[in-house]
């Protein structure tokens, strides 16, 4: 056990700290995540971060990145320091976090050259077209058709729960190109320009009150066959690469730590009968309990980081992050609401609302993440089958 990073890493950290101190005024309000990337500061900020090696660091130079070898410790230091400085970090989102690694693994050279550079510069926003009304947890049953006609794929069908589709210029999605093939073998991975005629995006308001995701309808949408990633019928295999990246993105320990620090602050500042609510022993008990869960997830993340650095498998431990992390984040927000009592339920429009109602938003938004990216129940199937070696449920 050695929690020190060593001199080379510490000097990288010191350099990054100095950079953050002198450039923080250039940062945008937010660096994206699953939200909408509309801040005009975002793209210049991202270009600066790429130039300095703090964003798209491991993306090859020819595709607009830094060309550095992957180093999980450097990645961890970058995440830690941006969070500690309270400065939005490298742009994130489904394009950067999910599509880019997938293209690097499966894309043609031309696809990489064309799509990766604007994506890592945060100029090109992507959405993920996987789920359909009839294909949720059973994603491979998807029915959106991509009929191949010469050098064109003609797409008809519907996607749903499509985050950021209203702001995205591109979609990476799954369509059925081989109607004769078996369920999993008939799917292809397609890059679809969202301004193609025949695409209609209808925002879906979530329980948070925001339109965070959408329905997307396709009517005879003509997409160049050159936008197909990998070979026809390989889409399922390729999508699984993307899903793996998504599961690592959701449930990260630094999100939980950020929420925990905010929770302590809220319970310290909030008063009931003129006393800090933190002085309620029952609430303190729950706060210490959730602190232990948060610390456990931080330690868990360091353990997985070590396994990555050493190229070792973390076994079943690597499969439990999303299930635990999303539930923890939902619970952290829930405890803040309990600490605020009725005041926690005030809507954004109320003059009495605290912090713009962010705890109420987090509480509901995090519940969405418990479901999105593979429901908690699907996660449990994965943990028990791949992690514990238990058999699949026989098909009915």
């Amino acid at each position, binding site marked *: *056990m050695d*929690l020190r990073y060593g001199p080379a890493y510490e000097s990288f950290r010191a350099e990054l700290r100095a950079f953050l101190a002198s450039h923080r005024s250039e940062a945008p309000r937010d660096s994206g995540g699953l939200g909408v990337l509309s801040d005009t500061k975002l793209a210049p900020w991202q270009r600066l971060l790429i130039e300095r090696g703090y964003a798209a660091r491991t993306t090859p130079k020819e595709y607009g990145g830094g060309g550095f070898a992957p180093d999980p410790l450097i990645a961890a230091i970058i995440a830690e320091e941006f969070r500690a400085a309270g400065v939005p970090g490298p742009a994130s989102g489904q394009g950067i976090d999910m599509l880019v690694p997938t293209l690097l693994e499966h894309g043609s050279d031309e696809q990489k050259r064309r799509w990766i550079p604007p994506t890592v510069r945060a100029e090109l926003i992507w959405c993920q077209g996987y789920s359909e009304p009839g294909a949720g947890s059973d994603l491979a049953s998807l029915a959106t058709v991509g009929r191949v006609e010469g050098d064109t794929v003609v797409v008809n069908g519907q996607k749903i729960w499509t985050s950021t589709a209203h702001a995205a210029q591109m979609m990476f999605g799954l369509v059925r190109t081989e109607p004769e093939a078996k369920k999993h073998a008939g799917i292809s991975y397609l890059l679809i320009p969202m301004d193609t005629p025949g695409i209609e995006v209808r925002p879906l308001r979530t329980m948070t009150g925001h339109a965070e995701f959408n329905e997307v309808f396709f009517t005879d949408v003509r997409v160049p066959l050159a936008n197909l990633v990998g070979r026809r019928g390989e889409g399922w295999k390729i999508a699984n690469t993307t899903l793996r990246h998504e599961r690592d993105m959701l449930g990260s320990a630094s999100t939980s730590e950020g929420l925990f620090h905010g929770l302590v602050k809220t319970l310290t500042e909030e008063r009931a009968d003129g006393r800090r609510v933190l002085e309620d*022993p029952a609430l303190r008990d729950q706060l*210490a309990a959730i602190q232990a869960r948060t610390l456990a997830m931080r330690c868990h993340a360091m353990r997985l*980081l070590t396994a990555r650095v050493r190229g070792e498998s973390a076994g079943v431990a690597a499969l439990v992050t999303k299930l*635990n992390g999303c539930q923890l984040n939902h619970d952290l927000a829930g405890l803040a609401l309990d600490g605020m009592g009725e005041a926690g339920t005030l809507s954004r429009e109320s003059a009495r609302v605290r912090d713009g109602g962010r705890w109420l938003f987090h509480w509901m938004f995090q519940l969405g993440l418990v479901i999105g990216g593979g429901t908690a129940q699907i996660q449990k199937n994965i943990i*028990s089958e791949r992690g*514990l070696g238990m*058999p699949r449920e026989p098909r009915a």
Partner: protein
Amino acid sequence: VRFGLSDEQRLLEESVRRFLAERLPIARVRELRDAGGAFDRDAWKELAALGVVGCLVPEEFGGAGLGVLEAAVIATALGHGAAPLPFLGPCVMAPLLLRELGSREQQASWLPRLASGEARIAVAAAERVERRQDAGVRESGGRLDGIALFVIDGPSADAFLVPAGDDLWLVPRGAPGLEALALPTLDATRPLAELRFRSVEPAERLGAPGAAGAALDHVIDVARALLAADLLGCCDRSLELAVAYAMQRRQFERPIASFQAVKHLCAEMAAQIEPARALVWYAAHAFDALPEEAALDAALAKSHLAEVATFVVRTATEVHGGIGFTDAYDLHFWFKRAALARQLLGGPALLRARAAALQGWAA
């Protein structure tokens, strides 16, 4: 950065596990229980020969000179085996107290014998955490009176370290006026003792008068981290048993391991155990490298592992169905070991209150 166990530490855990599987398999644990919690002296001597007993004794006194993380690795293996062997008293709390408070002479006299397993000292620490029933030991005029309860590893000890206020006294088992009784709990694998003092003259004092308080609290914190490690071992073994049973038990013409209702219970256990494992390592490592936060980490780790283990041993029992509720099946050894460890040296609510106080959350 390297977060996790080194190859040596993994090997240590593996060797203790193998020793227990060969020397104290659960059938033998059952025999010892049926014999009224008998102490297996031969197994103890062999454990000492492995270097495990003297893990925290410095090398200059014949020990292995290892750290708290190594002790935690051993504790996890002992929990995994539900080993009815002393550990927290003679291998952890007593050597640490001697290291921190003992004179050079006391160290030279006791530490080599602790490391070799020849002497066993238990520490009457429970009342330092909270007094229950009529417990409490007072010192007056160089004599000890009162009662100490829940002395971990007490029945097999031949001497006791007994706090009275901020003094710490060493009392041999045969001291006139001292009565040491077994205090049976649901867990036959971790024998506890009750000590009754009637004007007992202690053999010696550890540390200067009134100076033992901080060392005692520190050693109790270490023991909490190691109880968390032991609970982790209980969790691991319970999940192993549950998965293995679900794979071979058939109902509705198929293994029950293929039912999502059963698989999800097992997945939930694994999902709670893995982050808890990292927390245990971290809390133990804190005593070796991050002393300023070690007390807090120990409180968080032990309270959290108590909750995780309570969930895991209960859920593992449910996965087994009726057989899990029988005495003939082995699972209850871990159910009971976890139930006692949960309460020892502070239950989860007490430890969460301590964590809150350590961070200044309380008024």
